[in-house]
């Protein structure tokens, strides 16, 4: 099982490698409300903790960036520290040294990047893993931090057409399978160097890759929605995977070694006639749908460089999509401009084979509406501002949002209303910069905190009660090994004992890494009687949410409970062989 599947890089040098999960550049808004746990991205060390206001401080981080293979300093590498509401970025000097100052106290993730190297977080040991958070106190100076950048690997080759002529302007990407909201999908895996366009000789160079196996995809980029239809018999270029198949499942893996160039990954794009999907869209009242956008997006295929392309319906509601490659899609009809509560849309799964699909009749319907209010668990008036509340109605699976994610705005009387909901949603929320967290979501007396609310056409779900509490839990401790030494190279997983709760959006599932002193912390876990906690080495973040993996570690995990508002200290021992 995956726990044992360890590709240890540079074990002899004792340095971290792997492709990084890049923290967002500083200044970008943090992704989603802090209470929402639906993302499969690794929880960021240094996510806003309760009670920590963003501010500048007086702590300083100093260190050096070196090349992992030679140990030589890397100059002009970009170093970022991402922490609770603050961040700092700098570049290394001629000796590879960096200093980031004016940091507030808190937990930071530190990352370094430079072209030609694999971007990495400090303390990261393998691809897809978070780094070691750095815990800083006020005025603390932490020095001698070393970040070792592994040399990036390279894939080169040429793309041809079916005549053997080189093709330019093709987007080539290095892709890997990753777990996205619990579903394994093929995603672009190479960071900024992982995608390239072919030149006039059809040549491409993809760089900065972490060692591993990749699937190389080639897709011809085509452009604007104003492009007209081709004739029925004109073939189109289909996204092709090395060594020349349109089916990712049949693609050959390209293995790259650390810092090596794998050349000769040349192949021809498949050029074939693709299907035409046509039909008519009518509204729920039978009127033809005019000027709405019709598009198809792949449901199981790769999340790749091909975006969804669409075309507006004609005045009589008819539409034609041409050059659709075989596969499973979600066909969507949605208004071009953001509509009001009455806006209608349709979402229909469509399976495209070799033949055309004609005479589809799509009926749009109005979306559902969610209404409710924010309350505190004591019933007292909330002591925070309505503008501080971040409330979201998230779909069960990220990446499949059928309409734009309506982020709810809370009115002055603490009510909210969200329209245009077309699929089941989970209510998530948090309070910015305050020591409050989501306790429960109730509907008609039922607890729906971990259940999705479904919306029939035009249905209004009223009286959703979103309960916040300030009785936050806290779980912390130190991880030590047999000799009592703090362990830094581990990942901690907190999960519920009940496997029913091992869902991608589960609030009870968290991972974190110990800081530089082996100390870990989990803030604002929901109270629960049967938690397990385990420390494992050598595991990628997206694997930790995999139910198969959790089943293997459940029995050796330590069992504990967390009551409301409880602050628990739990020391952990990592025994040999784990």
């Amino acid at each position, binding site marked *: 099982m995956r726990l044992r599947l360890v590709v240890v890089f540079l074990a002899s040098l004792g340095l971290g490698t792997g492709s990084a999960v890049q923290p967002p550049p500083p200044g970008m*808004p943090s992704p989603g409300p802090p209470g929402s746990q639906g993302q499969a991205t690794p929880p960021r060390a240094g996510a806003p903790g309760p009670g920590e206001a963003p501010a500048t401080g007086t702590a300083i981080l100093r260190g050096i960036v070196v090349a992992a293979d030679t140990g030589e300093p890397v100059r002009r590498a970009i170093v970022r520290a991402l922490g609770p509401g603050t961040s700092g970025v700098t570049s290394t000097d001629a000796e590879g040294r960096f*200093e980031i100052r004016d940091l507030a106290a808190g937990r930071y993730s530190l990352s370094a990047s430079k072209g030609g190297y694999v971007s990495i977080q400090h303390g990261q040991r393998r691809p897809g893993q978070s780094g070691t958070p750095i815990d800083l106190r006020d005025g603390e100076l932490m020095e001698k931090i070393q970040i070792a950048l592994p040399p990036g690997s390279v894939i080169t080759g040429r793309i041809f057409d079916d005549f053997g002529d080189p093709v330019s302007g093709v987007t080539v990407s290095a892709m890997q399978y990753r777990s996205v909201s619990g579903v394994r999908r093929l995603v672009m895996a190479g960071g900024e160097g992982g995608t390239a366009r072919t030149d006039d000789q059809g040549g491409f160079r993809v760089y900065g890759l972490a060692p591993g196996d990749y699937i190389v995809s080639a897709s*011809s980029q085509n452009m604007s929605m104003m492009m007209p239809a081709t004739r029925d018999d004109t073939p189109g270029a289909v996204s092709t995977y090395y060594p020349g198949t349109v089916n990712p499942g049949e693609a050959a893996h390209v293995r790259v070694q650390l810092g090596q160039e794998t050349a000769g990954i040349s192949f021809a794009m498949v050029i074939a006639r693709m299907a035409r999907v046509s039909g008519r869209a009518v509204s729920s009242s039978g009127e033809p749908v005019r000027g709405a956008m019709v598009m198809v997006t792949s449901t199981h295929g790769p999340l790749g460089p091909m975006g969804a392309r669409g075309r507006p319906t004609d005045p009589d509601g008819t539409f034609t999509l041409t050059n659709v490659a075989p596969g499973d899609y979600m066909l969507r009809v949605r208004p071009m401009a953001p509509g009001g509560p009455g806006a209608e849309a349709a979402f229909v799964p469509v399976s495209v084979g070799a033949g055309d699909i004609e005479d589809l009749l799509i009926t749009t319907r109005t979306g559902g509406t969610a209404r409710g209010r924010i309350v505190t668990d004591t019933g007292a008036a909330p002591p925070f501002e309505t503008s501080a509340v971040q409330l979201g109605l998230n779909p069960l699976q990220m990446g499949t949002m059928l309409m734009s994610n309506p982020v709810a705005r809370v009115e002055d009387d603490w009510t909210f209303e969200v329209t245009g909901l077309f699929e089941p949603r989970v209510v998530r929320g948090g309070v910015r910069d305050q020591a409050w967290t989501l306790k429960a979501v109730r509907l008609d007396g039922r607890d729906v905190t971990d259940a999705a609310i479904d919306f029939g056409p035009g249905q209004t779900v009223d009286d959703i009660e979103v309960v916040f509490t300030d009785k936050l839990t806290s779980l912390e401790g130190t991880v030590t090994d047999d000799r009592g030494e703090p362990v830094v190279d581990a990942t901690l997983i907190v999960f519920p004992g009940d496997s029913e709760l091992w869902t991608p959006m589960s609030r009870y599932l968290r991972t974190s890494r110990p800081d530089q002193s082996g100390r870990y912390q989990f803030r604002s876990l929901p109270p629960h009687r049967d938690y397990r906690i385990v420390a494992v080495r050598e595991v990628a973040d997206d694997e930790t949410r995999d139910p198969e993996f959790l089943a293997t570690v459940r029995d050796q995990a330590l069992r504990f409970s967390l009551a409301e508002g409880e602050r628990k200290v739990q020391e952990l021992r990592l025994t040999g062989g784990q």
Partner: protein
Amino acid sequence: MIWIGQSSDVRIYLLTLGVLCLLAPATAQPRAGGQGLPPRAGQGEAPAAEGTSAIRGQIVAADTGSPIRRAQVRAASPDARASRVTITDAEGRFEIASLPAGRYTVTASKGGFVTLQYGQRRPGESGNQLDLGEDEVLDKVVLPLPRGSVIAGRIVDEYGDPVTNADVMALQYRYLAGARRLVPGTGSSRGRTDDQGSFRLFGLTPGEYTVSATLREGQGAANANLEADEPSGYAPTYYPGVPNISEAQHLTLGVGQEQTNISFGLLLTRLVRVSGRVVDSRGMPAARGAVMLLPADTLRTGMGGMNAGGTAVRGDGTFQFPGIAPGNYLLFVRPGGGGGRGGFGGALGDGEFARLPITVGMDDLRDVFVATAPGAVAQGTVTTDTGQPLPAQGRQVGITAVGADPSSPVGSTPARMADDGTFELRGLSERRLIRVNAPAGWYLKSVLLDGADVTDTPIDFMPGTTSSSLRVVLTETTTELSGTVIDGRGEPVLDAAVVVFAADEAAWTYQSRFIQAARPDQDGRYRMRNLPPHTDYRIVAVQGLEDGQAGDPDFLRSIARDAERLTLAEGEVKSVDVRVPE
């Protein structure tokens, strides 16, 4: 010397300058379409108007004459609302059938070659249109594509180490918004350096180039532990390594020539932090907005997409750019949230925005205070000149407010006419001209504001104001001017262009309706529609007209001497043959 060149993409720049595409973060590039692969034609386009005519021909290499297979061929006729794409077969032949009658531009492209319009002979000019009648087949439409030229090299830093992800552009002077400006050339003239610092720009037309390299914001950051005047990043640098365009060394590329040793180092500069905060018109922090810095030069030089950086406004209204090179900039703030998916390209809608010039010196710039204001709103109605309502099938009318000032790019947010003929434009600012995307057979006759004719007079939109008295008048009758371009013996001339312009220099404004240029079709016939009725036009034939050159007042003055007088009455259909001056 007549060379077979490329042009059409310059038109794209004319459009995008009026639209806030300048502020799109610079990613990849090419305007030359799917280079040689059959177009995916996006899923989603239905056939446009169908007809019974066809265009057939062949694409060949200009130097050898050998056929080019899998070249992309497009036939487009704005009048007939038709646009088709196809690819050549193994013999380089193509056929585009079921076309409605109309005047077509045929363009061919293939990676490694220069994209060319049928009839085009020089870089930067348009080709000849093909006049296609009903039930007609035009055969033997041959386009000889010249081999593209290449500029390749490496970008290094002061240590000789490769610089990755630098934005390299091959710039040429082209006419844009009435003046010669430095813009990225046609073809794949823009690229990013890889991990070895290497870049390759290809498919370029021959000519003179300036090569620039820039490391965008986010790649360099102010280093806290440096001495105050130590450099910490890189400034935009021009081959062979100079900071100013005026000192840059030009590269001259012949047809199909490769210059592969264009390597130079980026110039060091001190990057500073630029930070501040944004409040909206109520004095509240403008959370979820987006801030962008555009070098002030860009507007004069027209280098689309060259922004120095973009960042998001934090929840408390503050923003920070970690590393900006000293210079003059324009700072833009746009509302975020909702449609701000792309941040900088999204519709303005109800959001507030701001723009202010700032100068970045050698020290960190803190406390930049920006106050946004809501865009103006303009409501109006669309009517016809006869008072009759528009026919049912002609109800797809789009109204836009395009920027009237080429040195001040603004977003143009289109509005759709509602069923009752009303429309509402939101998010307006600066000086704008109201323009219309009318249904087939209809044309803009005039735009009235409170009864005053503002068709060609920019309206100044003040923030937060609402005007509700716009009237857009459409008409079915419009002027049509056509004729044959002839030489001294009365023979048709294909290698020329006809320019019609109002004699009064006051009408030579940006996007003026009183200036049009057209090239003759395969029979030497030109046609211009919808010139406003006017008593004092000039008409002249010129050779070697570059796209956009007709908007240059200096050029118009130079050709006025040889021009004939022309009047056009309302709705007049006139035939005027134009003789090419000896």
